[in-house]
């Protein structure tokens, strides 16, 4: 901890910010010290830590002082950490929080996560060593590590050896996993080839294929995650699974739709349904494919796609065109409205409010005034007062 120097936290010219992360605690070796909640910034030249509660408390370490870094995985009740091993401090070091320390390493604890990205970027900077090519002011003279002929601290050699062993072990695990993955992919590729040949046969109508077999084939494709090459159906990639899902959705969404005036955007539905499920979540494509089958299955909801590409679920009983009449009333009362204003008045999301106003415009009831101040809708007096 005695390598840190106090700093204003401002970046020098030629020094660029790479990444920053809140919620980082610093350990001096294994010991917790008072610097328990700060923002950690990585620049091309330094590692800077600023206290979240007291912004004046700001300190930094030069990247050139780092020997190497390692990751420490999170555990139960423990955050993920990066261990930073440091060269001894130079004799002309500026003042910092600690005059001396028995440890030649510090730990950075990521209490609010972000360790993965930070480690990646820090490794990159350590490899690229951009500080060597981008000179900054005198006060940040780069320390090029131990001078030739100087004895390296014994502790570091031992740590390096341990790290090398650990790296070999990790590499072995990873390469085993990678090897297994490669073998698995070879088998998966065979499945892809087989499904292509089946799809071709179906297309060329070779031999009979029953309805039942088509359904089974589609469910195999779904299991493997292979795109359906057979586009006979007009509704989605309709497998049994999606049909069941469609029926489930009809049950789940009835109440929420009624609460929201009969219409919800597909993103709202995605969040609602997945939050309720908790696990075994639906993929966005599962949801879309199920919704495409709603109408065909004669369920009381339907999927609708607006011109803008926005997708919504409506109750069958909901007639958007009728809602337009009441929208026109609301706009007339107020003289003119933007989507945001209308949304607030009626209690809708801005996205759907905009779609309703656009539909009203399409039907000729509203006129637009499009300026830098925003898109505003007026009753269409050309229609009513001609």
């Amino acid at each position, binding site marked *: 901890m005695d390598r840190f120097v106090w700093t204003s936290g401002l970046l020098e010219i030629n020094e660029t910010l790479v990444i920053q992360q809140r919620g980082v605690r610093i350990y001096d070796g294994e010991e917790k010290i008072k610097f328990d909640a700060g923002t950690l910034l990585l620049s091309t030249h330094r590692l800077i830590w600023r206290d979240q509660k007291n912004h004046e408390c700001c300190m930094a370490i030069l990247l050139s002082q780092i020997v190497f870094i390692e990751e420490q995985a999170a555990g139960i009740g423990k955050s993920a950490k990066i261990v930073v091993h440091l060269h001894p401090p130079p004799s002309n070091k500026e003042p910092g929080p600690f005059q001396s320390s028995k440890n030649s390493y510090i730990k950075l604890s990521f209490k609010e996560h972000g360790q993965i990205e930070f480690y990646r970027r820090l490794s990159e900077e350590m490899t690229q060593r951009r500080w060597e090519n981008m000179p900054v002011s005198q006060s940040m003279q780069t320390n090029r590590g131990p001078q030739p002929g100087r004895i390296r601290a014994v502790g570091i050699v031992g740590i390096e050896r341990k790290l090398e062993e650990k790296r070999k072990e990790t590499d072995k695990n990873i390469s085993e996993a990678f090897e297994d993955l490669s073998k698995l992919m070879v088998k998966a590729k065979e*499945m*892809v080839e087989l499904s292509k040949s089946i799809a071709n046969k179906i297309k060329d109508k070779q031999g009979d294929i029953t309805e039942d077999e088509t359904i089974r*084939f589609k469910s195999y494709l*779904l299991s493997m995650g292979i795109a359906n090459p057979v586009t006979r159906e007009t509704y989605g990639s309709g497998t049994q699974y999606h049909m069941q899902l469609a029926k489930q959705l009809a049950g789940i969404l009835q109440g929420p739709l009624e609460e929201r005036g009969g219409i919800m955007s597909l993103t709202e539905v995605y969040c609602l349904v997945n939050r309720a499920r908790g696990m075994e979540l639906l993929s966005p494509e*599962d949801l879309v494919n199920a919704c495409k089958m709603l109408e065909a299955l004669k369920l009381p909801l339907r999927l609708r796609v607006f011109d803008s590409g926005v997708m919504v679920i409506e109750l069958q009983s909901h007639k958007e065109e009728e809602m337009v009449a009441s929208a026109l009333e609301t706009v007339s009362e107020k003289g003119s409205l933007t989507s945001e204003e209308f949304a607030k008045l009626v209690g809708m999301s801005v996205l759907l409010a905009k779609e309703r106003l656009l539909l009203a415009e399409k039907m000729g009831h509203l006129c637009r005034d499009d300026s830098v101040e925003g898109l505003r809708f007026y009753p269409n007096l050309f229609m009513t007062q001609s």
Partner: protein
Amino acid sequence: MVGLEEIGCFSLFPASGLGSYFCHLMIPWWGCPVTSSWSILQMSKQLDMFKTNLEEFASKHKQEIRKNPEFRVQFQDMCATIGVDPLASGKGFWSEMLGVGDFYYELGVQIIEVCLALKHRNGGLITLEELHQQVLKGRGKFAQDVSQDDLIRAIKKLKALGTGFGIIPVGGTYLIQSVPAELNMDHTVVLQLAEKNGYVTVSDIKASLKWETERARQVLEHLLKEGLAWLDLQAPGEAHYWLPALFTDLYSQEITAEEAREALP
């Protein structure tokens, strides 16, 4: 398993009409290769075998995928190469056995919620960095860490929901669009130009992109209209067009409504 086509089963029954009808009925006895039905049966068997292989893989390496974001990237890339989408459906083997599905679909929900919460401020445009920070904050201490690559993959899946999720490369990073605003090449290029300072002027555009004034003005007006840019007429020189999506913690501070009121003259 040798395909029975090679044994010359066809010579016993003609491949069309009544013959193939009998073949189809008699598969269990004769193993007659009526082409697509037989192949589907074959696929079903291979699928069972594959499922077993995947289960074995999962039992050894499921943790690795969960914990190691680089391995996740390799896994995704290999799937893409062979034409498989492990995230297409929650009902797929990959999702069920490796647990990758829930991880990305939940991330999708969190991304949508963050974008919605910040839309009033940035018009529906946010840097990948800020999105990453906000998502991590929302996930809380005990959730698993996510990488930026994970976010990008989750967002690519969200595009299926049709509400204008887009990924725009700027500088060395990405801007994430979460509203269906029309952004063409001209708009994108100006956003990229603005990334350096957080704002852009008509002169900047004319100097860097060599456009005429009118073209620059139209693009900037569109960004204003969509709520993605703010107009600063009090800036020295000419008007500055700021992109709130590009504000970083270094430039801005969260202040409360009272503080804002007090700050105004």
